[in-house]
């Protein structure tokens, strides 16, 4: 080890497109693993929904802006020995680059862990990385700046068609031009030179249509390196890999190709001295087998999260050890894992399919075309024992399965529209592909048209075949058995047989068609590894046995979506954490690979399953829980389970149903056990950061700063309590007030928003979710609140704002840029001695963020 006593972790900041919970999930695990080694952890983050920033995952947490200024001060105060650079996404890499350039690390003798300073420059500047890769003999995409047609022709002579022509520093919105022949090329260059401020163009070899392959490697400081997982994009290069459907393990590449990628991954990691995990992206020409390195990502990202979920390899815990200098052979894991698990290259005996979620149903004006710009806000995984099963479970988990289509009605497309959709894919493309097969398009023809490997079309045809057999044979044991074996549900069969799912379920049980659960572990059954993570299939052997003790099933938040459920994962994670403390065995059902709730320490057991009723019932049949928790968005599911006589506690933590206008009307935040009421404090709302004239986001302020108003509200406290009690159920609530004729009156009462739960928890340093859980479990308020900090003594003003994805989604249409809570992807929090200071801190480092 490097003789470290204290390390600094810089968090990811507010959630965003491309920044879901994966960083926070990594920090929770890495923070606790490093603490176990006797090294203190200091965490800086300004994400109110950070789970890592609560619950003792770090020794000390700073809720501070993620800026050079703030970090310089923290480093000076804390004097950490090392800095972990890989846990805050690409944005924090630039921040660390600035800290290095300003000598902040050097002056305070802080060691940069995991990477060379040079690597940071290469991450920030892809051209440097490309040169380095070239010097290592790795194939990279040829790309050259040209200033004349003659120069361009020379480049073309080397590269060959097709190429992409881009204008350098264009004065108008100019797109990349794909050129297939000389004519295209000349036209694109003429246009490109004309609009370029420097009269230059970039000519780049086109790899559109190649297979996109992702590999994750792991390396320790001694140079021992191994492969964690290979993954294959269903969609070809040209669609951002985060917007692509991805399978683990690779489905269609040969051993020779696989080993070539493995070797390249490990060689690059060795050459760059990367310590910890690294994500490589490759393009593979399916005809010539030539490959290119597209991207090297040594910081935590969605692919690493997926690799960890897919393999069951304890990636974050092992990475934590490597970061502080422990070698792979020295890593000590819990007894649930076989000795040396850190050194065993994971092998899978299941298939994982990740499917993205897009915000197009809410943000209608954004381009729905899937291309090189990432637009998905979240994703889900389906796990099964066949490609069909993994795919169907994944689709089901998006809530956009064949029977729940919201975005697409492919049956109604004309032939021309269908072909357009095949060539220019949009969200819901799987349905378009199925429709094409239904209409009799040939597999090889579709493979040629879409550049998707024919293998997948055989799988899709098989799905159609099974469904057809199901439709043609109502209540046929063989047809149902086969359908379930390949991933269909009671609901699917009910739709095919025009009956009720309950009847199908009954029929299945009568005929002994039972689900079996298998463990997701990294050795494909070669060794005993207990990850306590399961998925369902229909086979011979069931591996999941009912947990002993009081069992609480928590239905996870599902994929990250804009608005409706961002932050819900924080609530679910906290519920799991405090259920465990309350002596329950918390069991999670969730299919979101980036979810913090999936962190192994939080739940006693995890089921990676979709949230369709029959999927949930399969789990409940095994676990028979004492209580089930559902959160926002799952009210309907909660009701169904209640009707089936399960004890369900619904936590309604919805966002305000209507947009709150920024008219600084105060609100009172309270908790009740149904008999008694306590007031946390009073908040108010002020106008947000108007990057654009019509962004009307809002900032929550806690506690309220107006003394007169404060007094007036105190006078209302009896009435407030009365009102809350008349509302009935235990929980946390927001009571909104309104000014009528210059006097305050009670307006509405609603469940406290997730944002406010997070805000009060961060402000008080003590979890509101814990209180909520205990009053929901029926404990009296006096018992629940006895050690809660007195918020009246709070000396600081906290401010918190939703953040919006308009910039990333390139939405410029004013009508769509409304700043309504339903568009938010995350939130930021800050504090100060005064409101002014708090607002300054909120703005710092968020100058280009809409809130």
């Amino acid at each position, binding site marked *: 080890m490097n003789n470290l006593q204290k390390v600094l972790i810089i968090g990811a900041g507010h959630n965003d497109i491309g920044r879901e919970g994966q960083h926070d999930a990594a920090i929770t695990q890495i923070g606790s693993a490093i603490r176990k080694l006797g090294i203190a952890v200091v965490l800086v983050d300004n994400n109110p929904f950070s789970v890592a920033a609560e619950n003792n995952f770090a020794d000390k947490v700073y809720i501070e802006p993620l800026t050079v200024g703030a970090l310089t001060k923290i480093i000076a105060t804390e004097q950490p020995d090392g800095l972990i650079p890989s846990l805050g996404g690409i944005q924090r890499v630039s921040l660390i680059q600035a800290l290095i350039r300003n000598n902040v690390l050097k002056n305070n003798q802080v060691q940069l862990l995991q990477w060379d300073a040079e690597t940071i420059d290469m991450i920030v500047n892809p051209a440097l990385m490309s040169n380095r890769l070239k010097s290592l003999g790795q194939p990279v995409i040829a790309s050259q700046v040209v200033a004349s047609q003659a120069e361009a022709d020379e480049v073309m002579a080397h590269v060959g068609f097709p190429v992409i022509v881009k204008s350098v520093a264009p004065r108008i919105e100019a797109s990349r031009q794909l050129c297939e022949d000389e004519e295209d090329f000349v036209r694109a260059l003429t246009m490109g030179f004309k609009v370029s401020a420097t009269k230059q163009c970039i000519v780049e070899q086109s790899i559109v249509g190649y297979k996109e392959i992702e590999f994750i490697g792991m390396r320790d400081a001694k140079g*021992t390196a191994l*492969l964690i997982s290979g993954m294959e994009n269903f969609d070809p290069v040209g669609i951002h890999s985060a917007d692509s459907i991805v399978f683990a393990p690779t*489905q269609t590449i040969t*051993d020779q190709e696989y080993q070539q990628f493995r070797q390249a991954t490990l060689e690059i990691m060795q050459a760059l001295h990367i310590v910890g995990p690294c994500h490589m992206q490759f393009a593979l020409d399916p005809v010539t087998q030539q490959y290119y390195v597209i991207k090297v990502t040594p910081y935590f990202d969605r692919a690493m999260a997926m690799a960890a979920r897919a393999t069951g390899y304890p990636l974050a815990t092992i990475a934590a050890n490597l970061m502080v200098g422990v070698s792979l052979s020295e890593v000590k894991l819990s007894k649930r894992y076989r000795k040396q698990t850190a050194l*065993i290259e994971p092998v899978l*005996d299941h298939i994982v399919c990740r499917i993205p979620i897009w915000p197009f149903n809410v943000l209608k004006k954004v381009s729905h075309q899937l291309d090189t710009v990432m637009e998905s806000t979240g994703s889900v995984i389906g796990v099964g024992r066949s490609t069909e099963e993994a795919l169907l479970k994944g689709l089901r988990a998006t809530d956009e399965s064949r029977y729940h289509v919201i975005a697409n009605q492919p049956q109604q497309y004309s032939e021309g529209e269908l072909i357009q959709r095949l060539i220019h894919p949009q969200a819901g493309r799987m349905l378009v592909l199925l429709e094409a097969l239904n209409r009799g398009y040939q597999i*090889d023809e579709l493979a040629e048209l879409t550049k998707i490997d024919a293998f997948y079309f055989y799988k899709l045809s098989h799905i159609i075949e099974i469904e057809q057999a199901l439709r043609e044979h109502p209540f046929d044991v063989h047809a149902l058995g086969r359908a379930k074996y390949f991933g269909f549900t009671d609901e699917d069969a009910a739709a095919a047989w025009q009956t009720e799912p309950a009847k199908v379920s009954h029929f299945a049980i009568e005929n002994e068609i039972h689900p079996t659960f298998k463990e997701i572990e990294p050795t494909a059954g*070669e060794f005993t590894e207990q990850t306590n993570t399961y998925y369902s299939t229909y086979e011979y*052997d069931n591996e999941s046995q009912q947990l002993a003790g009081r069992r609480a099933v928590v239905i996870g938040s599902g994929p990250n979506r804009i608005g409706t459920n961002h932050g819900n994962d924080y609530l679910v994670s906290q519920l799991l954490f405090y259920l465990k403390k309350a002596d329950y065995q918390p069991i999670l059902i969730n299919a979101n690979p980036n979810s913090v709730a999936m962190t192994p320490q939080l739940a006693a057991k995890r089921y990676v399953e979709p949230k369709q009723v029959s999927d949930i019932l399969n789990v409940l049949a095994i676990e028979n829980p004492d209580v089930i928790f559902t959160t926002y968005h799952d009210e309907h599911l909660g009701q169904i389970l209640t009707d089936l006589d399960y004890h369900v506690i619904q936590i309604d933590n919805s966002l305000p149903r209507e947009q709150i206008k920024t008219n600084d009307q105060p609100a009172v935040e309270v908790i009740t056990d149904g008999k008694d009421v306590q007031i946390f404090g009073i908040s108010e709302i002020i106008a947000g950061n108007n990057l654009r004239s019509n962004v009307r986001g809002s900032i929550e302020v806690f506690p309220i700063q107006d003394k007169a108003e404060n007094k007036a509200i105190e006078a209302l406290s009896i009435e407030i309590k009365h009102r809350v009690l008349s509302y009935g159920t235990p929980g946390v609530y927001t009571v909104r007030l309104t000014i009528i004729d210059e006097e305050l009156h009670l307006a509405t009462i609603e469940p406290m928003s997730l944002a406010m739960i997070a805000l009060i928890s961060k402000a008080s340093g003590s979890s509101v979710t814990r209180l909520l859980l205990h009053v929901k479990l029926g404990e009296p308020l006096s018992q629940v609140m006895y050690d809660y900090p007195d918020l009246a003594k709070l000396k600081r003003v906290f401010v918190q704002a939703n953040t919006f994805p308009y910039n990333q989604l390139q939405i410029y249409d004013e009508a769509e840029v409304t700043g309504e809570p339903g568009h938010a992807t995350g939130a930021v929090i800050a504090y100060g001695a005064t409101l002014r200071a708090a607002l300054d801190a909120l703005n710092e480092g968020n100058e280009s963020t809409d809130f």
Partner: protein
Amino acid sequence: MADRYLILEDGSAYLGEGFGSPAVSTGEIVFNTSMTGYQEIITNQIYHNQIIAFTQPTIGSYGINHDSYESILPTVKGVVVRDVASISTNRQRRWSLDQYLKQQNIPGISHIDTRHLAKQLRASGPMKASIVDVADAHAFDQLGATVLTNQQVAAVATPKPFPNPGTGLNVVVIDFGLKHGILRELSKRACNVTVLPYTATTEEIINLDPDGVILSTGPGKPQDLPDSVLTMIQNIQNRIPLFAIGLGHELFAMANGAQIMKLSPEHHGANHPIREVITNQIIYASQGQGFAVDPTTIDRNKLITTFVDLIDGTIQGLRYRDFPAFSVQFFPDGAPGPTDALDVFDEFVESMQQARGPVW
């Protein structure tokens, strides 16, 4: 596709769907955890007379390629999978796995709970098994009565010498059922290769004036081979640089007094960490072994342990102390599997060059 059964010696039966050949066949069943390379595994002669169960659930998704054979004729007795893929054939993928197994008269069975099967075999070790149409008492009786041959090497090794010409160093490969990967790596290094049957005598080898000798991989138990093989190794090893792989490694150890033990659980995969003792470096390599050198029987005055499997401590490499003769238990040529150990072939080439002396 037709319902078929996989039945095991211990009385268990798995219902599945037949593919490949409709033949009934019997062999020893083992499970392999490799993520890729089913074609290389099926055609590896170490699996002669065995039935291979793949834990990777989808098998066959990239067909059969002309450059991925590890032998000309596969002699496995069956292929057990969860799911066999349908594919379009083209120039690279000349056959589907199903077509290929039909051609080669090898039965396959899909829709098997291969995870459960692997866990069962992990506990029991390899068993006799059959792929049959009916899992009745008769089938189990037949299975119980079947005696599997112990003459695997004789069945798969070349009966006659053949050349694999090159312009470089002169190498004799003694064939015990060799993997093509060995010849591929020697070709890459321009070696002029003569493959001799495993019955080759010391004199026949010496007469070819080789710069080095390779003892190849092969199937079965090394103790089942004639003692003359050990004598040949003893005569060659101190005269000509020697490199032994897989079964060859086990024979090299035996020729130098070590004993071979049954390995349980067996190694069939490519994901175990293997430590190179001299550098302390950890590598990954393809493994297929049911036997291992018993470390307690090694004469430390003769042999040095050069590679060790970090999972169970099995010996993965040996070297004679007094002359350039060395061996590895794993398959350094990969095919399928990691390329980490490819440079063992360079080590062999350099040993031969060194033994020849400088070129000027």
